[in-house]
């Protein structure tokens, strides 16, 4: 079979997948007795119709960029890290500890410390399954899943027994000091004279996420480590032949992957909640898998896919608010997108490849 041109592979296939997912979602909405066109309008209006909507969309997208990049880096090494959820949980703990116990004079210093701390905590959390796989042969899919549960339980214990302020019934930490609060996206954009809603959780973390996209791009395609990671991911035998140490690469890739997932906590814990909550990750670790699949493991693809999922999250919330469409349907739409862009990729790809081949034949 003829190979697809690059642009079709990178953009046409995912676009068609998304379109099919939306079409089927439309049928489902029709089946529950609502108007799919109106529903789509509500979603677009709610997510993209105002800077307020955009603020939420970008806030969610920031989370997905971090977790999506994390999955992508591991994926280049042939490792399926589905522990983004747990790694981000530990990242949140890292953020909370530096924000609560160190008196920061300025938010920028607090931000730097939170970045380092969240990345470190999450990286360590990812390094354990990596070490278990590299040295003991325990499969990383199994161990990272189990580490999600362990992370949740660990956080539960720490919040309830250690960080919960005396007298509080809420399993959450105390509020962080004012000085650690991050500037919102409205302040960042304000510097450039762009008006933006100040009532949204979007914050400067978005910029950090975008920088991470660029850094990951450099890492994967322009560094020796990236070369080794990709070689190892494509063929372990060839990597060993080339003198690449599988144990080391497994560890490095998972540490970077975990650190990226952990950075998500800067956005949610420090940027939005200003305290550590029991479930601050809210499934973003898993959405990261879909984002990475849809983005084909490329940082720019992850960026675009994260925006799409941000839109789905925010648009979905609006849908539940303004229509009779039950909240659960949003999950159906999101699941369909994941299904078509991830699992059913070949189903969409084959017809497109055949179409391209037909056109090519006609040209001859």
């Amino acid at each position, binding site marked *: *079979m*003829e*190979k697809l041109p690059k642009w079709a592979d990178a953009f046409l296939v995912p676009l068609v997948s998304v379109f099919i997912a939306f079409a089927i979602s439309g049928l489902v909405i029709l089946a529950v007795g609502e108007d799919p066109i109106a529903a789509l309008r509500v979603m677009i209006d709610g997510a993209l119709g105002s800077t307020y909507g955009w603020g939420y969309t970008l806030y969610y997208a920031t989370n997905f960029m971090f977790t999506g990049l994390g999955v992508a880096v591991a994926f280049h090494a042939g490792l399926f890290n589905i522990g983004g959820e747990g790694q981000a949980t530990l990242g949140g703990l890292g953020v909370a500890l530096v924000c609560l116990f160190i008196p920061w004079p300025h938010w920028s210093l607090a931000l730097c410390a939170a970045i380092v701390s969240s990345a470190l905590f999450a990286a360590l959390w990812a390094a354990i399954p990596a070490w278990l796989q590299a040295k003991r042969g325990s499969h990383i899919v199994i161990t990272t899943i189990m580490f999600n549960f362990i992370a949740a339980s660990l956080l539960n214990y720490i919040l309830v027994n250690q960080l919960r302020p005396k007298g509080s019934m809420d399993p959450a930490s105390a509020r962080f000091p004012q000085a650690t609060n991050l500037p919102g996206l409205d302040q960042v954009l304000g510097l450039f004279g762009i008006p933006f809603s100040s009532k949204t959780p979007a914050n400067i973390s978005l910029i950090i996420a975008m920088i991470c996209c660029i850094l990951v791009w*450099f890492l994967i*395609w*322009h*560094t*020796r480590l*990236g*070369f*080794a990671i*990709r*070689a190892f991911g*494509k*063929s372990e*035998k*060839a990597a*060993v*032949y*080339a*003198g*690449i*140490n599988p144990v080391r690469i497994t560890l490095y890739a998972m540490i970077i992957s975990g650190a990226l997932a952990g950075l998500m906590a800067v956005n949610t814990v420090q940027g939005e909640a200003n305290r550590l909550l029991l479930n601050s990750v809210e499934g973003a670790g898993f959405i990261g898998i879909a984002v990475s699949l849809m983005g084909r493991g490329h940082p720019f693809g992850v960026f675009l896919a994260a925006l799409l999922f941000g839109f789905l999250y925010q648009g979905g919330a609006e849908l539940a608010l303004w229509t009779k469409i039950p909240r659960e349907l949003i999950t159906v739409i999101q699941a369909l997108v994941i299904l078509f862009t991830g699992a059913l990729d070949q189903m969409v790809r084959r017809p497109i490849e055949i179409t391209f*081949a037909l056109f*090519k*034949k006609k040209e001859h």
Partner: protein
Amino acid sequence: MNSSDILGRQETAAPSLPLAIELRGISKAFGTVQANKDISIQVKAGTIHGIIGENGAGKSTLMSILYGFYKADEGQILIKGIPTIIPDSQSAIRAGIGMVFQHFKLVQNFSVLENVILGAEDGALLGPSFTRARNVLADLSAEYDLDVDPDAVVENLSVGHQQRVEILKALYRQAEILILDEPTGVLTPAEANHLFRILRGLKAQGKTIILITHKLREIMDITDHVSVMRQGQIVSSLETSETSPQDLAERMVGRKVLLQISKSAPNYGDEVLRVEGLTLHDEQGVERLSDVAFSIRAGEILGIAGVAGNGQSHLLEVLAGIRNAQGRAFLKSEVLNLTGKSANAQSRRAMGIAHIPEDRQDMGLIMDFMAWENMGLGYHNDPLYQHNRWFMNNDALLDETAAKMDRFDVRPPIPTLAAKNFSGGNQQKIVVAREIERVPDVLLIGQPTRGVDIGAIEFIHQQIIALRDAGKAILLVSVELDEIMSLSDRIGVMFDGHLMGVKDATQTNVNEIGLMMAGIAPPQEGII
């Protein structure tokens, strides 16, 4: 010979014999690749018909059509003069066609008898089938000198015996036409001779045999007729008695080729690589190498012959730093660590040991990587390819790849094309270019020309000779005995993890090497 002669189809009619199989205008395309194009062959009953062609010439596709694995886009198959449609392998078997694949399709932990009746059981109860099969097998074994114990478990049989089980399976299904795909690839010379004896016996009983091979000698030895395939087409159909290996090779490639490698007398220098007491146990604890010792001098090619799976692969991997082993090794009197931190491919390369691995698709190349990325495989830490501490200089690697592809005539010369999109020969040229162009002190080579077309074989052999003439030490592992015989200065033979002996290439012959390949030690030990 002029070109029209090569291209012209010469049908030599011998009307006395009826046709067992006739193919008329068979065409088959995969996407835009035309694997078979307007192929017509007549195979006379009771003859051995050879089909020869380079890798990718379309031989296997054609046979897969005949056996019902693929459906031809166009064309007709006539069996004993009757137009037959073969939609699947069951129909092929019913039409009297039996196939012996290159990779056997046997259940390893079943007995010979169980394998033979598998899929041809007579009823729900196995008892009667076994009784019948046992009798038939006894007859067949005796008739064709097959010598197979029906109760032996397949995994305990030698490769040659396993192949005979495949033949028995076909005969048990009353095959009149037997197709063998590269049958001698895994056999010792003695086993191959035995196979040919069996095939001649089958022919004498009126069976028709189609032999697919890329080995010219086999065609000359055993076939009555030969069809030459090139680029999906039959370019010649000849009586074997009217052709020669040189003629066949030229028809296969479509131009003049050098079958004989021109090689000057060796000019040995100092000892470069010495190995002593090399012993290796694999992950299952099986001894793969036992007490192997040899040395190679500068300007010398040491060839290691042997049937595949007798430890040659492990030997290469140990020396290349991919596997740990016990024993001692020295590179120019410097100790080569066989275990521990520095026993890896990276430090071997740094010491000047390059490695062309046996399995280029799995090990030597990353098929999804582009040619230029593959050119950096193993050398990605080289300062040549770095901008600074942090960033690689991909452009430098790209430029160098373009230059190497040009020097090695890799086609198409596109550094950004993924390795999987090159032909086998061109893939191998990429690996050879990467390893040889750095002029290593020691070059380890495994199966340099497996699955490579004749044109590229010639080129790769020349490069190996050139490196030897430049005073480098070369360890060449190959299961192609011809290749070992023609390239090596000294020849070692491996059997069951032992180095059976090392002989001077000018003072040995195929018979002696063949005996050693079968585990029979030579009368006196050679020089080590």
